[in-house]
């Protein structure tokens, strides 16, 4: 009786994961479908869509010349990488600083800072997006990569803060005192003791910031200028104009990239324990 119920639950569990992964799997499969007209009807294996997105559009028909220019796609990728890398760097430094301050010191505004760091995470994306748009425009800042980077840092600092704080919570404070006691000044202590010990958390936070920045659509959508389209905004634009087979290929490449970064994150998480 009990066993039967567990069995039923297991069937459900497998269905649950199928629901999560089947659509993603579908995109990958159909990225190899040769049918240019109805992409949901399988008509043979092809790598044409991958050729198209990487600029070798030899075998494509007029109909599927959808990525108007591979240059645009590549520029979007480049923009995304610039934004994500810069954002990761800045938000990791800022978030780690606050995490260190809150974990290491007793001060009156501690509760305030904790709350402050949660606010950007619970703020709906669209609200932050339009607020930043209003802000940049009314102060005459041109919209571009810089505005996107600033926008991403406002909420990614919080993500880094959370991850690094979790790591700091498990760290013995007397280690830093021991280092000072043995003659290391503040900076040497940070470099030789604190940083190596919180590094898994810092890397975890940085990877999270990187992946979210790479994937952010809503905030970027409002504060990216004409020439500073990032990859998610670019694909979103493509999708709004119609569904073409190349998108499957782009999506598959992005999936691969995401899985790589996620695995890397998992590796550092495992190493940190």
């Amino acid at each position, binding site marked *: 009786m009990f066993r039967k119920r567990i069995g039923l639950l297991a069937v459900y569990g497998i269905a649950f994961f199928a629901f*999560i992964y089947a659509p993603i799997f579908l995109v990958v499969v159909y990225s190899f479908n040769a049918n240019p007209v109805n992409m*949901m009807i399988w008509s043979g294996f092809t790598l044409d869509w991958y050729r198209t997105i990487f600029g070798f559009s030899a075998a494509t028909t007029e109909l599927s010349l959808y990525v108007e220019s591979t240059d645009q796609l590549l520029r979007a990728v480049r923009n995304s990488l610039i934004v994500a890398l810069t954002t990761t760097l800045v938000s990791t430094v800022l978030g780690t600083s606050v995490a260190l301050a809150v974990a290491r010191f007793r001060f009156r505004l501690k509760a305030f800072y904790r709350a402050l760091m949660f606010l950007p995470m*619970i703020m709906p994306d669209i609200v932050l997006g339009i607020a930043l748009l209003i802000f940049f425009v009314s102060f005459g800042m041109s919209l571009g990569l810089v505005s996107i980077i600033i926008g991403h840092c406002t909420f990614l600092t919080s993500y880094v803060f959370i991850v690094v704080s979790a790591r700091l919570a498990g760290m013995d404070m007397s280690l830093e005192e021991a280092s000072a006691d043995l003659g290391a000044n503040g900076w040497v202590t940070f470099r030789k003791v604190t940083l190596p010990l919180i590094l898994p958390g810092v890397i975890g936070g940085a990877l999270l910031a990187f992946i979210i920045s790479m994937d952010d659509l809503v905030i970027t959508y409002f504060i990216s200028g004409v020439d500073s389209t990032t990859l998610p905004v670019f694909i*979103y634009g493509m999708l709004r104009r119609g569904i073409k087979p190349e998108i499957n290929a782009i999506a598959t490449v992005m999936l691969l990239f995401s899985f790589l970064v996620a695995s890397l994150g998992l590796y550092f998480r495992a190493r940190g324990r």
Partner: protein
Amino acid sequence: MSARKPIELRQKSVLAGLLAAPTLFLAVFFAGPLGLMFIYSWLEPGLYGGVEWTFYDLSYGRIFGWADTRYEKFDPVYLEIFLRSVVLALQTSFFCLLICYPAAFWVSRLGERAKSLCLFLITLPFFVSLVVRLFAWVLLLRPTGLINQFLIGLGLIDTPLEIIFTETAVVIGMVYVFIPFMFLPLYASVEKLDASLIEASGDLGATRLQTFRKVVLPLTLPGIIGGSIIVFIPSLGNFIVPSLLGGAKVVMTGNLIEQQFLSARNWPFGAALGMTVMASVLLLLVVYVRLLGRDEMPAARIRSSEGG
């Protein structure tokens, strides 16, 4: 001796050094924009976009009913859209809960290795581009999409069902996207649940339904509420999902806001809508914190478990 405190002084300077840059950054680029948005929502929209710097409460009036009687009668369409968004966000939370609850129980009963594999698999979609995940559902739900092909192939229907560009499609899309947000806090509650409590309840003569109502449900309530709120917040202001899966037919507050900024160029009205969304979210969080206490802050839990 003087009352010098060299150690405290040094600590304070380190503290100031650590906090100076983040504080300045967030004050200017987080508090600043939100403050400005608040101000904008009370300004008069200019003729060609932009704003006039005069007090104007009719942006809110258009939403809540003190319409500008000089130009128009109060049209409850915006309030309707907002309430519609609330309903869709609630539906999203509800279905996420329905789907995740049994799955959380299943995962919590697995062995250690299988458990961490499952948690990894749940978290992984979070790392996958939102647009890509939604695109998959466009492929599935379109008239020529896989679901319709499948149903026609089985002979169940002759003409494709209109699934895409309906509220159903929007809810499906949001449920799919936000499942990890629901699962993790829910799982945290379910895992803490001691299996022997369920056995004890059964032993004491409770039926399975009674056990669920009186033991399981109350003990997992923090996870249920926490997960629902984390799903509700991004659903309420969402505009990506309705714009891809709802088309022109399903308009949520998010789409309305987007229009104000990108096509209608009525920024004060957009700002007022944004403030309304933000106020609803903050109100919800305040109620939640009052009910369950600070430690159960939902955002903290899910997001640290995702990233840590």
